């Protein structure tokens, strides 16, 4: 109390300034509460409306009944989301780390500056535009492209495109966080750049890169718009990954379709599915936070 600048001078303040000080300070707290209230409201509303439909059967069975989905569960969505995330990661993790290594190694060069700019711009590309790109590259049946139709491969690789710049950005940052003295020490011992990268830089940055991958997965898990263009939806389990039978279900798509139906029962199912998606996303989020916190603590950078 003694050392605080506020108390020291508050004696001679005019009532107006004292009032303004309290008012503005209080307003910041109030507006912060406004800002995070959607988080609390969304969790509350999803819990309140979806809880009744949420049980083990909901997670472990395929949708059935009429209209489809009023009975049964969301197994197709869970499996499909998993398939899409695996496909997306298998494209974006190698490419993203590769590009991140380049940005780290080439550092301040003009070319690296351009690559960094483009990578940041790719982060901001709207998801519908990714959908269009994915459609014309993977799904379209005319012109150039892979002609895979609406399929898991098309949807997953489109999500992979979205993930690449995220993994790139975080990989570069994680590599920059490896102390320069480690890198210089490795070079001083006569190691080549490849050896330094393999045995010093990458192991040091592993936790950060892992965080980046999880962040990317977190981001693409909730993506719906690109899937409208490339994968759409399947009420069953996938039998192949490309072609006309290749579409998979997807949690986000499932919520979208259920919410669009004029059936109260499906809205309840949608809220329960939202609850599952929220649970996965928030658990991932907390996991990422614990990971960063843990790795910082190991590196001794947190007081």
């Amino acid at each position, binding site marked *: 109390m003694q050392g605080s600048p506020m108390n020291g001078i508050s004696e001679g*303040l005019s009532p107006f*300034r*004292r009032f303004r000080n*309290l008012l*503005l*300070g209080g307003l*910041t*707290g109030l*507006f*912060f509460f406004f*800002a995070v209230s*959607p988080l609390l*409201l*969304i969790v509350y509303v*999803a819990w309140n409306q979806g809880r009744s439909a949420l049980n083990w059967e909901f997670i472990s069975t395929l949708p059935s009944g009429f209209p489809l989905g009023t009975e049964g569960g969301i197994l197709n969505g869970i499996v499909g989301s998993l398939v899409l995330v695996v496909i997306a990661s298998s494209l974006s993790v190698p*490419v993203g780390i*590769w*590009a991140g*290594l*380049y*940005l780290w*190694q*080439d550092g301040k060069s003009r070319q690296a500056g351009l*690559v960094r700019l*483009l990578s*940041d*711009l790719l982060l*901001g*590309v*709207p998801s*519908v*535009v*990714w959908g*269009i*790109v994915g459609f*014309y590259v993977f799904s379209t049946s005319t012109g150039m492209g892979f002609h895979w139709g609406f399929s898991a491969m098309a949807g997953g690789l489109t999500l992979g495109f979205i993930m690449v*710049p995220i993994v790139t950005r975080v990989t570069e*940052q994680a590599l920059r966080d490896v102390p320069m003295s480690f890198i210089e020490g490795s070079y001083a011992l006569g190691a*080549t*750049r*490849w050896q330094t990268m393999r045995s010093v830089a990458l192991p040091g940055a592993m936790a950060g890169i892992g965080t980046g991958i999880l962040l990317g997965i977190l*981001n693409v*898990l*909730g*993506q*719906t*718009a690109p899937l*409208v*263009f490339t994968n*759409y939806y399947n009420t069953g389990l996938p039998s192949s990954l490309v072609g006309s039978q290749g579409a998979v279900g997807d949690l*986000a798509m499932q919520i*979208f379709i259920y*919410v*669009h139906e004029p059936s109260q029962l499906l*809205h309840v199912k949608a*809220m329960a599915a*939202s609850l599952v*998606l*929220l649970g996965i996303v928030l658990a991932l*989020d907390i996991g990422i936070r614990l990971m960063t916190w843990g790795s910082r603590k190991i590196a001794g950078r947190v007081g």
Partner: protein
Amino acid sequence: METPESVRQDIPKASEKAEGRLEIREEPDLAGRSERLFGWILKGGGLSILVLFGVVILVCLVAAWPSIHRFGISFLWSSTWNPNRKIFGAFPYLVGTLWVTGIALITSIPVAIFSALFLSDYAPSWLSGIVSTLMEMLAGIPSIVFGAFGITFMVPLLRDHLEPFLARTLGTRWDFFNGDPLGYGILAAGFVVGFMIVPLVATVTRDSLLMVPQEMVEASYALGATKAETVFFVKLREVMPGIVGSVILGFGRAVGETMAVLLLVGNQPSIPQTIQDVGYTISSLLANTFTYAVIDPLYAAAEVELGLILLVITLAVNTLGRELLLRLMGGRLAGSVGGG
């Protein structure tokens, strides 16, 4: 300690030294070659980003070309959208997008800036970790969940309470606030998009607030300023470019929001006259009708051209915002990754 004799004894062995030098000359050459090869392999990583960017631009340009060629620049202000007569104009969708984005920005900017101040200056230190986490978790909530929340919570709230209230109070003087209280419309979509961009704007603003030199804050206190005066008149003014940059990034995010808007905006290609009207945005039109449009090449091209307009807007806006923030913060551009 080496004696001079031993040194002198080493010198005459010229043949041995020459051999050694040969070997030494060989080695850096080999290493140099693998180093160069490694450098080229790494360059491929940079190239992959260039290629990805090129693919995005190229696909949009090529697929939109029939429409660009057919309608030219008047595509932007023609308001007829008739697939049967093959006449397409972007105006209603551009206006709808700007309405939703505008409402989102107006509602979210004050909330985001005050929250950023709370995060950086007002939250007590034991609380600051938790409140930052809450803010960043909000950024991770998927767009579709916001949309579902909007349908089950915001729409009834607007329909039964806020919109009748607006019509009763402000609406009696200005027609702008009047309208049918549907719940769905640009207001619902704008509010929900506003919720979604608050975390982005707030975290970027917070990061730029943390860059203000401590000396400046201390100088302000030394001149007798209160905490609020220091924070609002000194720090906030100092980071104005950062705030502008974060708002620009928020604009870029809001313009492209799709699923929540699609569920809430009402999807009517009319130009909104009042704040309670329904509308249609570029992104929601694309997500809603693109799969029907692909049957007709010109229809598809017109839709892709809308996507191209969206892409150009976001690229321009994000370049600008990034430039402002980089100048202020030098390198780290945190908080730019988030839900979609």
